[in-house]
């Protein structure tokens, strides 16, 4: 048997799925930055983190990633999509592109994805749970109810989030996400 007669088969790059996930992570990252300025619950969650707190959400083994952090002045900022220069407090990784696609197309909710062992989380558990709560709130703001209900375990009732708060904040978050401030 001559091994050189057999071509090397490389795995597919899954361009469409990786681009879709990268776009979603970019939007979610900017939306978290916006929500931290607009929504009192998200603001409160970030106030419980110490200054310099940085978390990353991404896909193993090589990305795409989304980084959000709190600077020395306590401001929440989207830090881009490169891991390298930042010291991470919490690093949440989805194990592969297929699993990430299931999560970002809402075929699996965040909780179901955890139950299906799609995530690896390095860092403090309490901080990790706070990030899951923040992601839930951001999903409620970004997505129409029919889709957000697939992503979160329980869609907030009127007593938890009034329509006025939801629609007003949604407008502000979308504006800030698009403009990046």
């Amino acid at each position, binding site marked *: 048997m001559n091994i050189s007669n057999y071509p090397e088969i490389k795995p597919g790059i899954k361009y469409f799925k990786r681009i879709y996930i990268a776009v979603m992570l970019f939007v979610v990252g900017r939306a978290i930055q916006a929500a931290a300025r607009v929504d009192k619950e998200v603001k409160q969650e970030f106030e419980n983190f110490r200054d310099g707190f940085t978390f990353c959400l991404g896909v193993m083994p090589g990305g795409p990633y989304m980084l959000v952090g709190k600077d020395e002045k306590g401001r929440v900022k989207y830090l881009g999509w490169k891991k390298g220069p930042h010291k991470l407090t919490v690093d949440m990784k989805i194990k592969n592109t297929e699993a990430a696609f299931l999560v970002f197309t809402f075929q*699996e909710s965040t*909780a*179901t994805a*955890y*139950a*299906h*062992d799609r995530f*690896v*989380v*390095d*860092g403090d*558990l*309490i901080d*990790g*749970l706070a990030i*899951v709560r923040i992601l839930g709130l951001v999903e409620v703001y970004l997505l129409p109810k029919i889709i957000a*209900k697939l992503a*979160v*375990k*329980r*869609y907030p*009732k009127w007593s*938890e989030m009034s329509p006025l708060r939801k629609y007003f904040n949604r407008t502000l978050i979308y504006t800030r996400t698009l403009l990046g401030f």
Partner: protein
Amino acid sequence: MLLPSYYEFCVRVKTISGHRALEKIPGALEKLGATCPMIITDKGVAGAGLVKLVSSAMKSKGTNVKTGAVYDDVPADSDLKVIKIVTDLYRKKKCDSIIAVGGGSVMDTAKGVNILASMGGDDIMDYAGSNAVKEKLKPLIAIPTTSGTGSEVTLVAVIADHENNVKIPFTSYFLLPDVAVLDSRMTRTLPPVITAFTGMDAMTHACEAYNCLGKNPLSDTTALSAIRLISRNLLRVVKKPGDLDGRLALANGAILAGMAFSNSMVGLVHNLGHATGGVCGVPHGICMSILLPYGLEYNLHRTANLTGELLFALAGEEVYAATPKKERAEAAIAYIRQMNQDLHDATGGGHARFFNEVKNRDGDLMVPKDKLPDIARTAMGDGAKIYNPEEISYRDGLMVMEHAWEGIPLNLKKVSKGRRGQKF
């Protein structure tokens, strides 16, 4: 049986069960290439003569196995500092394996020592978190002395950092013991009150494993077997502590429940139970037995079918067949409440049914009502809430704790409901 779209299940622990199972230990160690084990235990277990039982069972002709060292001062909820002390002793005595004899704290300490002794270094915190341990550790044999923890088959060790008042989880498949030995002699002298709440701890593991988001056919099978063994034997053994067949059945129920929850995780009962234990120091098993019916009630709108299926294992085929399908979930919850009541009566009031019955040795309430908000707040930082079928907010946690404190069934109208019916 529900088949989820994806699941993972792993139990790599060899289980040896029997009335004379301890005598198999030397052979098991030799097969693992070990001859100098260290025994890790606590003062209570040593005082009950159980370590002597293990040591004498290990003396058999022709074996090269000799106990290298014994450490018998593991504290109630493990401790980071103790890990270092025990590891130093392990290295000094040139041990090559560990035998853990005790309950959950001893098992967690043994797993922690195994990490440090196998991976090297002096700081266990280097290996904290999920999957930080990435290679096979030294041989570990687990011999449970309570029939509740299931730690002999779990991949988690939770070790307390008393200086910072936090509990540090260590999770890895490599933490699983190599062998679990279930011998009825190890729980024969367990007092009825402890038998009751450790048995209900195992029942909780099984019931939550059957209802939570990580459930799968393999964990379901072990959970139902565990529930059947515990419901048939727990009250019997509390009333007649010398019943060795019953003791062995409970030990098997506990290990099956451990296999179930280790692979499908747990939910609200453990979420609030961990917080209650952390804030008020209530033993884990007591929290579980009190909160179990409330956890099932809280998730009823999402998992009524699954809770109804528990009735078959709990009460038997005749009761199950005679109960209309719509009523089975409530009947299962009522059965568990009745179990708590029967255990309360059998222990002369020692087994608590609600939190306002839980008292310390001085007769003081261990869970004062003004601590309930702290418990609900602490529960927000516990990972078990992710796997619960329904969302748990601070208000939800407080509402459940108030009901569990008073001892009144949960008012289902107060439960904030998300999606109806289960989606796993």
